[in-house]
């Protein structure tokens, strides 16, 4: 005997469906947390350069780098992807440091330009090490090529 599709049935689908799929989401999250240690390059955070990477992330955040760049594809689309900038710059943290340090304060006429942040050498090292750490996260082969 077919049951009429009433408001109560709809309500029960809502509560039951939400609860079920939220629990499933939590279970998947739990499993993900178990797998991340093999993928997220966390060893770097506890290694010798750990403090520099942590500092680099804070500098990254406190200068709103995500307001122009993407990092692993998330952020703003005004400036290049930086998740693989370490590889793009020839696996060189020095090249990254040199680029950031050499930005002209008044910009480049007519063109997009990165601000001059006047970072110290220690801060530049921290940012470069942070970007190197990010580049070694297992991202399922994203981005498709070196151009990001």
């Amino acid at each position: 005997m077919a049951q009429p599709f009433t408001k109560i049935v709809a309500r029960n689908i809502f509560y039951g469906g939400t609860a079920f799929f939220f629990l499933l989401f939590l279970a998947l999250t739990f499993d993900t947390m178990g797998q991340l240690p093999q993928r997220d390059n966390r060893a770097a955070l506890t290694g010798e350069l750990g403090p520099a990477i942590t500092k680099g992330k804070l500098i990254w955040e406190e200068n709103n780098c995500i307001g122009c760049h993407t990092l692993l594809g998330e952020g703003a689309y005004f400036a290049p992807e930086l998740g693989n900038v370490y590889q793009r710059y020839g696996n060189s943290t020095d090249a990254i440091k040199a680029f950031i340090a050499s930005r002209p304060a008044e910009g480049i006429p007519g063109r997009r330009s990165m601000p001059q942040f006047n970072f110290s050498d220690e801060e530049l090292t921290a940012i470069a090490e942070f970007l190197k750490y990010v580049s070694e996260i297992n991202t399922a082969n994203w981005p498709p090529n070196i151009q990001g």
Partner: protein
Amino acid sequence: MQYQSQAVAKPYFIAAIALFVAQVLFGLIMGLQYVVGDFLFPEIPFNVARMVHTNALIVWLLMAFMGASYYLVPEEAETELYSPGLATLMFWVFLVAAALTVAGYLLLSYSTLAEVTMNKLLPTMGREFLEQPTITKIGIVIVALAFLFNIGMTILRGRKTVINLVLLMGLTGLAVFFLFAFYNPENLVLDKYFWWWVVHLWVEGVWELILGAILAFVLVKTTGVDREVIEKWLYVIIAMTLITGIIGTGHHYYWIGAPEYWQWWGSIFSAMEPIPFFMMTVFAFNIVNKRRRDHPNKPAMLWALGTAVMAFLGAGVWGFLHTLSPVNYYTHGSQITAAHGHMAFYGAYVMINITIISYAMPLLRGRNAANPLKSQVWEMWSFWLMTIAMVFITLFLTGAGILQAYLQRMGENPQPFMVVQEQISLFYWLREIAGVIFLIGLVVYIASFFVGQNDPEATTAS
């Protein structure tokens, strides 16, 4: 207006519209910086303009959600608001906090702002959409809790309708998931994983409950269709929203270091996310077709139907366009993302808020049901100008995004980011022109509040 305390909604709506203007102006600045790279550099660099653009959007949507709640909850509960004084106080707290934050963005360098607000004590800044200083975030939590308390107490002592219940669930979810904004581990993958619990579970989760409740309220009021029918639809829509949308979070986990099974979970579930939006379109048109009265407020009906259509196009269709992982591999973090973001936010959340403002404002301003005809005509022109402009903004960004993905990521000879950007600048110019049309539409919208105000109120017959 049936209850005196509904009047507290008015300042929320006015402030929301003012912030909307700021959002669009800074959007135009950014759009120009895309093609004239040194425009306003270094005074207002792109990242600052973008923060103002996105944060103004978030704050005005929240303001309007609060205004909508203060308006519709007492009417649904058939009782006065628990504490109108608290609502007014929280309005000023929220407005001042938002104004100070924007002033901080514009007057200080971001690192100075981080320093003076002591970000290092609890670093939460510098993540997309969550750029607000930690102290502002704490302020948002306080305002949200006071708001929830006020709304919750009103619902508790009044009639408990499905619309009020769904709205309250949405608002509670909004407050709860915002708490993940305070979790910012040094491990970038964990940071990103839970950042989405704010961003995705807001806009593709609990916010849709708020959207559904507001839309249902306006349809109940304007069509006179039996509440039972509308409430059943509402339950079905939000059920599908959360059944698809929660696991759909997985479409953000493809390339940020999470396990690769998310490519399956995310693709399959988020491919179904358009279903609730399509149901919403069918629902809105169905209810309007079954209407038992012709409500004299034509623009409110237009915005309501517009929401249903544009949310489906922006969130549903443009979301589906790049949600399957093999496609997303090439489009992730490109102008395709920007195209989707613009039409989805406009179609779902901007339009639903204008819908409730359009319905409620004439009543808050002391009219029986609707604005004078002239005002309505202006408002409907603004609907078409803004909506068509947004369609073109989306199409131009989509064109830019397809070329970008091809030239930078797919072609024989992938080219560097900036080389590609210059090749697609035509699309950015066209987007900027469409943006100017949008601004004109917004000016017409604001003008509609002032034109023909001494004329007699429109009635159904006219």
